[in-house]
């Protein structure tokens, strides 16, 4: 007798099935790629490969480029890039895309930004798509019900030449998140909390589908923040089934379908959900009622605790290897076991990135900054120029500048510190980014991951505080 559940499909199963070009007997599958974002931080020979093989980009219109990693936040021209070496990489991207007819949003284009911010806001990332980029945070676009994943540069060349990728089918993991997030607890806190439970290797080889009342309640921006950091749990991708909120977000976006095509698409997109009873390889259920604002204290994104916690003690860990690893993380972070996170002095603050560089994030930070003044250097880098312009239209730039924050041009900036923006060795940095790895924000810099309101509060107080005490209006939507 056949098991009826085998005919039921998860959202991921549907996305996969819709993109199979060729399947080998060993299961390796050639998948069609609908959207390919090109960044500027690829190895120098990535684009030369096509020329050597005398190949053209197969689907230039499916490809969109922007120079986000090396973009200066001090200006919007090539001349602003920090040195000739890095300028030449951006020039290479410009030449390649222009030669191949690939659309590129130039540094001064109103649509320029971090690919994971710009793509969705331009309506380039749509439900049902396969989306790739030579960047691990491509998982962001899964918030729209797309199979979106990061790839290496060899795979970038392969997609350019063939519009396909060889993939082995990943396993599926359902993460059901029930309950209601408390006031002031954001999607960033939720994903840090989930990673601290699942672990940084917890979802390796899996595509996570997030579901449950706490996910449905998130805004699209919040869902993007959540999916963005799926890679920090090791996941291949993160997914959320599209719903009315998704469709409302996309309606009228420049590259989203319009007219009759839009109506047809909505009907198709409504089918992009896991069939009730469909089988996942693994499943978790969490209740998030008790989640508080989170702060990372170590050198791995799983080394994160609630704001009122203390730094753990390596002596409490039985496994000597893990205890040793923890001790070195604390040494790097210059933290003694048992130190309270509350009150920890901060030297620098960064607000931005593909994780937390969207309008909603800046609104939350501005709500804290309003009428106050920073005590440490703090920069705000919008995730895209569209975010920047929208924030300025609301006067957020004035709030930040009046409070002593620097208001910069969009880009990846201090998330990985390769555009000239970086901390100094020994500094402790409150950051809205996604990775607290050793040296991530500059050699010797100590990164504490947190939400944008928390980072703004750290800039004001000069130390880590519970930002909820500084919120002017706690009823403001902060998810």
């Amino acid at each position: 007798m056949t098991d009826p559940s085998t005919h039921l499909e998860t959202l991921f199963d549907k996305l996969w099935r819709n993109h199979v070009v060729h399947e080998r007997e060993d299961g390796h599958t050639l998948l069609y790629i609908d959207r390919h974002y090109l960044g500027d931080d690829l190895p120098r020979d990535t684009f030369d490969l096509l020329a050597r093989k005398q190949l053209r980009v197969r689907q230039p219109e499916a490809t969109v480029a922007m120079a986000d990693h090396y973009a200066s936040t001090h200006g919007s021209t090539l001349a602003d890039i920090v040195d000739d070496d890095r300028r030449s990489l951006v020039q290479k991207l410009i030449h390649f895309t222009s030669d191949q007819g690939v659309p590129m949003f130039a540094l001064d284009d109103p649509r320029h930004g971090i690919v994971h911010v710009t793509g969705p806001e331009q309506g380039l990332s749509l439900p049902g798509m396969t989306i790739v980029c030579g960047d691990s945070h491509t998982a962001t676009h899964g918030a729209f019900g797309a199979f979106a994943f990061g790839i290496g540069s060899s795979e970038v060349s392969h997609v350019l030449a063939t519009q396909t990728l060889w993939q082995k089918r990943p396993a599926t993991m359902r993460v059901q998140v029930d309950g209601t997030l408390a006031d002031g607890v954001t999607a960033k806190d939720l994903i840090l909390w989930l990673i601290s439970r699942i672990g940084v290797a917890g979802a390796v080889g899996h595509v996570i589908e997030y579901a449950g009342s706490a996910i449905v309640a998130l805004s699209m921006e919040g869902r993007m923040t959540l999916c963005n950091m799926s890679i920090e749990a090791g996941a291949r991708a993160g997914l959320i089934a599209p719903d009315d909120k998704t469709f409302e977000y996309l309606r009228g976006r420049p590259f989203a379908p319009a007219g009759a095509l839009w109506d047809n698409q909505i009907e198709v997109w409504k089918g992009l959900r896991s069939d009730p009873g469909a089988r996942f390889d693994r499943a978790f259920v969490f209740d998030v009622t008790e989640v508080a604002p989170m702060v990372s204290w170590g050198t791995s994104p799983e080394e994160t605790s609630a704001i009122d916690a203390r730094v753990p003690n390596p002596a409490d860990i039985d496994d000597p290897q893990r205890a040793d690893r923890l001790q070195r993380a604390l040494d790097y972070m210059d933290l003694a076991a048992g130190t309270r996170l509350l009150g920890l002095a901060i030297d620098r603050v960064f607000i931005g990135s593909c994780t937390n560089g969207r309008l909603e994030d800046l609104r939350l930070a501005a709500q804290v900054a309003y009428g106050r003044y920073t005590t440490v250097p703090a920069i705000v880098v919008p995730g895209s120029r569209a975010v920047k312009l929208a924030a300025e239209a609301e006067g957020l730039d004035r709030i930040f500048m009046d409070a002593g924050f620097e208001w910069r041009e969009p880009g990846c900036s201090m998330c990985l510190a390769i555009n000239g923006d970086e901390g100094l060795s020994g500094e402790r940095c409150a950051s809205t980014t996604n990775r607290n790895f050793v040296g991530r924000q500059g050699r010797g810099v100590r990164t504490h991951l947190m939400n944008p309101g928390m980072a703004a509060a750290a800039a004001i107080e000069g130390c880590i505080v519970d930002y909820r005490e500084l919120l002017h209006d706690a009823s403001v939507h902060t998810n």
Partner: protein
Amino acid sequence: MQAFTRIEAVAVPMRDADIDTDQVLPARFMHKPRENYGQYCFHDLRIDASTTRERPGFVLNQPEFREASVIVAGPNFGCGSSREQAVHTLKDFGFRALLSTGFGDIFFNNCVKNGVLPVRLPAQFIARLFDALEHAPGAHVAVDLYAQSVSAPDGSTASFAIDPFQKDALLQGTDEIDFTLGLAREIDLYEARHGLTRR
């Protein structure tokens, strides 16, 4: 791509879990041309920031491990950033095979595309390798892709699984783009079925 068949070489133990690609290749070296690119490998672990000299405590700076071509690593090696430059620097430093209980997904694929063999092995066998390599620094480990087996310094062996597609590609040094273009007709058909035109 350079083919991989079999190597027998010095293996270096790196017990830490979750060694991310930022440690393998700090981001500030990503834009450097691929000339003498091995010099950036584990740079901030190998080289002291203030003296700019080698840090004697780091395992790769110990004389027994300088010729290592194999890394035996803690779990989840190569997590984090997708930067393929991390594999470039490992390869240019001289590494051809990496043994661990698991790897970051993107990093694993990047290795295969560059003729570097990532091998997933049971935790017990990895623990045995760590002990053997720390007991006898400079000992050799053999990795045979044909036979899908790894031999520890004490002669014990473990077999490993690898996707047949990736095994063939590594053994033959296949150019994947050329291989896929052999299926161009199927890509054409997919595009035709989905109303996708080409310029």
